[in-house]
């Protein structure tokens, strides 16, 4: 139980996928222009990340390892992620049209989020068990959601600030992401087992 809690803290704060591992930067920059889009993206990513972490664990341990096909890891995980993204979209569209309206355009974008593939590969690299893989995926998604929502709120404020012309838009957003990353260095050393 303590181990799972440590994994959760480690993935949310200490090794935050966006600010410390620098994964998933495209949606971090692309979908942070307003708060609602960021919140929608966070929810959709959280669902897909946890699901694909679980399925890729099963794929790796029950198909690739017994057949000695570990070299197909990357391509296998990409297929799993693409399938689970598609599955999520179909499910959401059928079961909750309202949710689909909110999340609709973000769900296909998740397939290109490198944090999702990163979680699947890192789970194998750190030889996590099934529960650990699930928590790892969920923690990564929570960390992603946390910084994405905070960043979106900051960017809404930057839109009305008197920023020098050459730095408006993406430039100041990247500077901000850099300072956020500096701040996250403060968590280093936490969640050691």
């Amino acid at each position, binding site marked *: 139980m303590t181990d799972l809690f440590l994994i959760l803290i480690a993935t949310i704060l200490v090794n935050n996928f966006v600010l410390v591992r620098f994964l998933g930067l495209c949606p971090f920059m692309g979908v942070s222009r307003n708060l609602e889009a960021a919140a929608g993206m966070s929810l959709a990513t959280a669902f897909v990340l946890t699901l694909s972490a679980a399925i890729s664990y099963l794929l790796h341990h029950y198909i690739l390892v017994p057949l000695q096909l570990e070299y197909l890891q990357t391509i296998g995980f990409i297929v799993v992620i693409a399938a689970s993204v598609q599955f999520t979209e179909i499910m959401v569209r059928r079961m909750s049209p309202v949710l689909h309206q909110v999340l609709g355009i973000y769900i296909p974008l998740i397939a290109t989020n490198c944090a999702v593939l990163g979680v699947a590969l890192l789970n194998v690299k750190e030889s996590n068990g099934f529960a650990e893989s699930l928590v790892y995926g969920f923690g990564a998604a929570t960390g992603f959601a946390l910084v994405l929502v*905070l960043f979106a709120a900051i960017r809404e404020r930057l839109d009305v600030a008197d*920023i020098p012309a050459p730095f408006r838009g993406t430039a100041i957003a990247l500077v901000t992401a850099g300072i956020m990353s500096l*701040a996250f260095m403060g*968590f280093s050393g936490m969640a050691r087992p």
Partner: protein
Amino acid sequence: MLFERREAPFIAPQGDVAALMRQVLYALIPAATAYVYFFGPGFIFNLLVAAVFCAAGEAAMLRARGRPISPALKDYSAMIVAALIAFALPALTPWWVTATASLFAIVVAKHLYGGLGYNIFNPAMAGYVVVLLAFPLEMNLWVAPHIGDIDYPHLGLMDTAWYTLSGHLPPELSFEAISRATPLDTAQTGFAAMQTFEEIHQNPLMGDFAGRGWEWIANFFAIGGFWLLYRRVIRWQIPLGVILGLTIPATVFYLFGVGAHATPGFHLFGGATILCAFFIATDPVSAATSPRGRLIYGLGIGILIYCIRRWGSYADGVAFAVLLMNMAVPAIDYLTRPRIVGHAKNTLANQDD
């Protein structure tokens, strides 16, 4: 003949930025005096270097943007950044470290965001974190406090000036002779070596309860802070939030926690807690704006300081905690917007109306 005519209100207005900033600078004087008394004249050189580079950075950025320079320099906001950087740095710091912190604070953290009033992050803390990560060696050399029965060799005025300029000590002295771990460092290494807090406290550097010299500087910061509260320059929510946010977990873990934990008094008066509570976290630009938001903001800083000190690898977490909560300020403001009179309570559903 012209008579001076007076009308209500008779209380002097507080709207002037320069007047407010001057009050803050006055409130730092007691602590600055104590700092120089305990840790030598290095603080004065740091303050000079920081002030020069902050003013130069401010002037250069305003000139590059074609804005008037003198009003911005006269509002003393850059001087407060310089003073906070000088307080955050070790008493002996080579000038290039101070200059890096000052220029990052003013140019990147303040002026790239549009200058005073727009900066998301506290400039002084952003500058400090940059040099903390970029110059770890220089940032960990703290001189021993100059007090009472501990008799360590101390640098004179000329030697300090020479060190600030060149980064070299006089040949007969070494860092091993003049530098000592800070109380927070001592506690951290002690806990890592499985000592209890009582054992760590045997170290003469630990003073009465939060480190020789340090506890007194904290008291002088508190005097300045209470004066700012009395003058209504700052409001009570943030200082109270920071102090509660730090003291509550510290007390709970000290009384009921498993393993060794420092006393709440050590956390409260050790390191930069009081400086943060009254002078750093209360920066009106980068802090939350609503009263409830300020309390949340302060509590968050206090809790993060405790977590970083207790479980992180840095001895003091003030700068990181402030930057992390700065990040959260727009979201806090969004969620704690006060109700408009006559409108229904804010909920997520009607916030767009």
